[in-house]
């Protein structure tokens, strides 16, 4: 078990709360809240992947610069699944705007 924290300088404000994904083997859940700064708090069952997390977040925020508070509970998701859940959260924000 490892706790990771990241911050980013992003521009597109998150306007509402969004929840995607589940805490199941190979998956993760994301709780996304409106906030004045972009912070990411990750609790992961797989230790030693900080660099990979940073790369996934860098790539995601480069394409979609969302400003909000991300709480992530990870249970061994691959980088692909992490990206799927992040982009699903992004889509959910746009849905009923």
């Amino acid at each position, binding site marked *: 078990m490892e706790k990771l924290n990241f911050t980013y300088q992003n521009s597109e404000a998150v306007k509402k709360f969004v929840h995607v994904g589940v805490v199941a083997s*190979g998956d993760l859940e994301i709780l996304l809240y409106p906030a004045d700064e972009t912070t990411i708090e990750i609790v992961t069952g*797989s230790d030693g992947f900080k660099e*990979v997390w940073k790369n996934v977040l860098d790539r995601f925020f480069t394409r979609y610069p969302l400003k909000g508070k991300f709480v992530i509970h990870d249970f061994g998701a691959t*980088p*692909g699944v992490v*990206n799927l859940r992040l982009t*699903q959260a992004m889509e*959910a924000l746009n849905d009923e705007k």
Partner: protein
Amino acid sequence: MTERNWHTHRDAKAARLNGASALLDGKFAKTEDVVKVLEALIKPGDKVVLEGDNQKQASFLSEALAKVDADKVHDLHMIMSSISRPEHLDIFDLGIATKMDFSYAGPQSTRVSQMIADKTMQVGDIHTYLELFGRLFIDLIPNVVLVAADKVDREGNLYTGFNTEETPTIVEAAAFHDGIVIVQANEIVDKVPRVDIPAGWVDVVIPADKPYQLEPLFTRDPQAISELQILMGMMAIRGIYEKHNVQTLNHGVGFNTSAIELLLPTYGEQLGLKGKICRNWELNPTPTLIPAIESGWVDSIHSFGGEVGMEKYIAARPDVFFVGKDGTMRSNRALGQVAGQYACDMFVGSTLQIDQWGNSSTVTHGRLSGFGGAPNMGSNPTGRRHSTAAWQSLKPADDPLAKGQKLVVQMVETFGSNKKPVFVDHLDAEEVRKEAKLANVPIMIYSEDTTHIVTEEGIAYLYKTDSMEERKAAIEAIAGVTPVGLRSNPEEVKKLRDKGIIALPEDLGVRRQDAKRSLLAAQTMDDLVEWSHGLYNPPAKFRSWS
């Protein structure tokens, strides 16, 4: 001047059979004499085809071959589609065989790699199926072939039925060039349901102690299909199948293609694509295609081999499958490979590694697996001249003599389930070539043949790139956070999106939130049984305990 003897092979065959006559009653030998029969009929240095393919194994004969006296039978040159069973390699440790030509070594790939390094095994070549089958008639003409049949009648006619696969091709290579055809039989009967191989091609029949080994290799449990695979399937249907109007196709084995098969009756239906895509297939009878067949999507399916549990379902759907008058399907791997390579407009497969240029391989460190049919299906047959919309849609516009191209699609997640990157700068296969001293780097599908790559990030339309630099950039743009993907930058991604060289889900009108398991036409094996009206009978290992 003495006249040349033009029938030395025939004389040699007659002498061998004569030498075994004490063990034979007509064509038939006793089960318990199998080792003696092989010792009498196989000579040192012979080229021997041992039938071992993906699904069906001549397991009784392979076990017997591992028991022959290596003083009598040695230095054999084995020719095998698939190295699957331990005794296929034991014969090298025992000194019975020294050289191997093969196509695929999935379950034994680690040991094959080790035996080559230890010089226990010399490798002729690692072939595609069609190369191997073709060479049986050119420069790898067998002295002896060891094959398996379901039923044999008193004359020696063979019924290979549902699992005919490559048996007729192997037997033909021997029967018409004075090789010896030895058959293990599950059952001796008065009358075979149909003749798959005529008695005149067969020399020796031995009743086996138990039925040949048969594996359900192409069955994928819908329960194990992930939302990521569903997303990739949705992108492929929109961005490739629909875009290129693909009617004739082959799917490789895997969860990505199973997901597509299960999305046709739901997502495909919503898009109004029924009758417009996926009508004619070269495919092993995968259970995950049942819902699409039952929903009227599929006009025809020809199969390389059978699949355990699908017998009754197929027998009841002769309009779709290739079924004999007796009611069982006839598969044929050689013709299936030809059809898959030449008659189909698209191949969709998966791999373990893709390099920065777009070459892919399933050979990784310490595992020399070979590739079976993928390099045939996953290559552009340049002699082809189809008028189909899909083939024509890849034709360059600026060349008056241009021709179309086959769609060769690789679908991969950027990281494997082991969290190793699929996109790498250099394939492990490059190292494996050096270690095993192979003539060719064991690449499964070459970059030049690969027209599309699909990942969870999007689709790269490689055929649209006009330089290797652009091709590399397109791969980087969809390669996630692998070492290759990290080289991508936002300006480049924008440029490639504008040119239509890459497409993200939003560019294709695919909502990632719709990628849910509830979108699959069947979510469990039980659902597949229900779709089949109870005709599909899943093998025990795919049944739940409920």
